[in-house]
């Protein structure tokens, strides 16, 4: 399939030239086309932020909702129509800050969705304040003396909660990112892909070169089924590992756990009200 299928005509792209978002968009389009996923069966869900605008630039069904609230939306879309492919995309502020509670509980819920998080360690849309993943001492107009909070570690948290798929990628490496994305989309269950990306306008510390110098790929000796090992790798900060940290298919997905799909796999919009059962229920109240 030609990745152009996913191009949106006359899209007025709001990103800065050189933004890491462009390569993520390109990678995603190529991934989807190589996986032969059609725009009609795809729902892109996002919150607010520069990353949250990505669904507008990719031809698909789109739910661009509120800041931090995309994961509950994605979960529900998948729950009422498991035939849809749901990709949730937003930034580090939206997913880990405003939406932190949903991030935690949706990992526990384990819907079969893919959660792409653009992690540039800074707030872009609101012009350069600290994000939950900003590193200590990183100074901004609001964190004048530098960030004093411990950076949020999404991978370690996800692994602690036995997330079913946990990975980190770097936007500068389209080839590897595509491979990780394919595995994440194919994976049954909640899949987190935290993607390091430079913010060329506001983050002058964690630049393209910084990410290149401070990351390395997990090699074949890493066993993604080993949770303890995965956790160890997730808390490394000297150099940040990239790749698939952890995978587990022990838990059923949220949709699989729902009684509505025990015998009938069809989406809920195709189901009629069972008037006979309603009458019986009302009758039981006599």
């Amino acid at each position: 399939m030609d990745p152009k299928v996913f191009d949106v005509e006359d899209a007025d792209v709001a990103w800065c030239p050189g933004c890491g978002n462009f390569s993520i968009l390109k990678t995603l389009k190529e991934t989807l086309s190589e996986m032969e996923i059609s725009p009609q069966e795809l729902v892109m869900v996002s919150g607010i932020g520069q990353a949250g605008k990505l669904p507008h630039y990719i031809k698909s069904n789109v739910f661009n909702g509120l800041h931090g609230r995309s994961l509950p939306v994605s979960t529900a879309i998948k729950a009422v129509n498991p035939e849809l492919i749901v990709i949730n995309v937003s930034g580090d502020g939206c997913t880990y800050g405003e939406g932190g509670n949903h991030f935690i509980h949706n990992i526990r819920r384990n819907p079969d969705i893919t959660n792409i998080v653009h992690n540039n360690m800074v707030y872009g849309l609101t012009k350069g304040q600290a994000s939950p993943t900003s590193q200590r001492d990183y100074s901004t107009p609001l964190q004048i003396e530098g960030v004093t909070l411990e950076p949020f570690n999404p991978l370690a948290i996800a692994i602690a909660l036995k997330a079913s798929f946990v990975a980190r990628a770097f936007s500068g490496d389209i080839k590897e990112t595509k491979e990780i994305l394919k595995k994440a989309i194919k994976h049954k269950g909640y899949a987190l892909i935290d993607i390091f990306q430079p913010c060329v306008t506001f983050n002058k510390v964690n630049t393209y070169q910084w990410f290149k110098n401070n990351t390395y790929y997990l090699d074949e000796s890493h066993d993604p089924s080993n949770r303890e090992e995965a956790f160890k790798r997730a808390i490394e900060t000297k150099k940040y590992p990239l790749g698939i940290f952890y995978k587990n298919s022990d838990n059923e997905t949220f949709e699989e756990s729902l009684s509505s799909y025990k015998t009938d796999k069809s989406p809920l919009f195709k189901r009629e009200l069972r008037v006979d059962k309603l009458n019986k229920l009302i009758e039981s109240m006599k």
Partner: protein
Amino acid sequence: MSNNSSGNDISIVLCGEAGQGIQTVETIIVKALKNSGYNVFSTKEYMSRVRGGENSTEIRVSSKRVISYVNRIDILLALSEGAVPHLENRITSKTLIIGDETHLKSLSKDKYNLIGVKFLEMAKEMGGAIFSNVIAAGAIACILDVPKTVFESCINDIFTRKGEKIVKKDKTAGLKGYEIGKELVDSGRIKVEIEKDSKVLDELILDGTVAVGLGCIAGGCKFMASYPMTPSTPLQVFMAAHSEEFEMVFEQSEDEIAAINMALGGFYAGARSMVATSGSGFALMEEAVGLSGMIETPVVIYIGQRPGPAVGLPTRTSQEDLNLALYSGPGEFPRIIFAPGNFEDAYKLSQKAFNLADHYQTPVFILSDQYFADVFYNQPEFDMGIKVEDHIVKTNSEYKRYEITDNGISPRGIPGFGEGLVVVDSDEHDQMGHLTENLDTRIKMVDKRLRKLKEIEMETVPPKLLGNSEYETLVIGWGSTYGPIKEALSNLEDDKISFLYFKQLYPLHHSTEQFLNKAEKTIIFENNAQGQFSDLIKLKTGFEIEKKVLKYNGMPFSVEEIENNLKAFTEG
């Protein structure tokens, strides 16, 4: 009975501590009475605690239909020492107090009409103090001439899930209660004669929560996400309990914010969706009410009102969140607010809420409250009436989610159904759904969304006039005050007083002004401190209601209270 002034209508109150099983007894008795052919009503008031405190349940048994709370207590079953002090201001010299001897011993025989029974001793012999409730239930059942077979089958219904042993013990306890009841009747201390009506046998017995719940199911609800909060939790429990049967998804979300965003995701993908919450929980949902308005993705919101602000009185009742619902969410967009006051309206309006939400693609509120959610009474079967309307369109490749139309309603497609793509955006957007900062498009979109309000106004449920159309005094009420106002008016037998009952609060029906202008005197009853609905009426019609009777101590209006206020108002 010797000390019942109302003849064909008796009010029995059970009072004890939380954890004593008062609610279980209520369920047994109410069902047993209804299945014996009595009109029956019950309401409970309770404290926000799992054990201890004083909780009471009022059970009215009547020869005519009763659907409201009265202040009067004819028989008090005092199951704890604190029961009589707790209900002190409702007890009169006519109230017959039946209780365990140990609980009554400190009370003056001159002041109170007391009957001591060895409930606790008997209960302990049967295996524990907890059985004293079922003994009391048996005594009431006997006094009211409930056939033993009916009583026993109700015990079966309630306790079967706890196992045969428990059922047997509870039956024995119940029969012990019958013996006590018989002794009391034989001694001549209690005599109750209330006419039965065989028609009641075919009626339903349910509470206000279940009436809404059945309406939601009948409205085609397929998805519900919520976070537990009194007094909306019972609706969540009801929907969860029936989710498999009706192929619904119920999810307890991590918070209210997740709940409503899930519901929007659910509706977006084709499943009629709802949330249930109370004031503070709804406050957390507000942002997403605006999202619903903006992306024109429907949602049905059930608010069980309780006194606020903040945590307020968690287990008490109020009508304080009309303004919250009416003004929730940033920006301007249409919404619909229902406030049913009886079970039939609760069923029908809840059902209608889903059709309207789906059609107008906007939030629809069902305002209830603790009092209404928790009252039980017998109800004739609902007219199944309305059908689940299908408003979803199959999209083609040219599909535009926000197509500008004359009535403002853009055909709503869902992802995965047709060739088109469904794009929704919380930013201002163009007809395709993509975000825009074009200010001309902005105006077109605001106008489009607000044109739906004009359509909604044409479909507003009118207020219902009860009583003579040639009235002098007009009583106004909304939602749960319906029952007590209706009964008070029927007791007053004054054909110059009529009652205008609002079940849709917003948009306000255009006939409102005419009804008000026709009256010489107007009076409104509201369970809030500021007269929120009378303010809304004034805002929309310019009409100032003369007298506002506002109650905000957390208790519902009693029939007597309304009668007294009306007498003072019409005579004054």
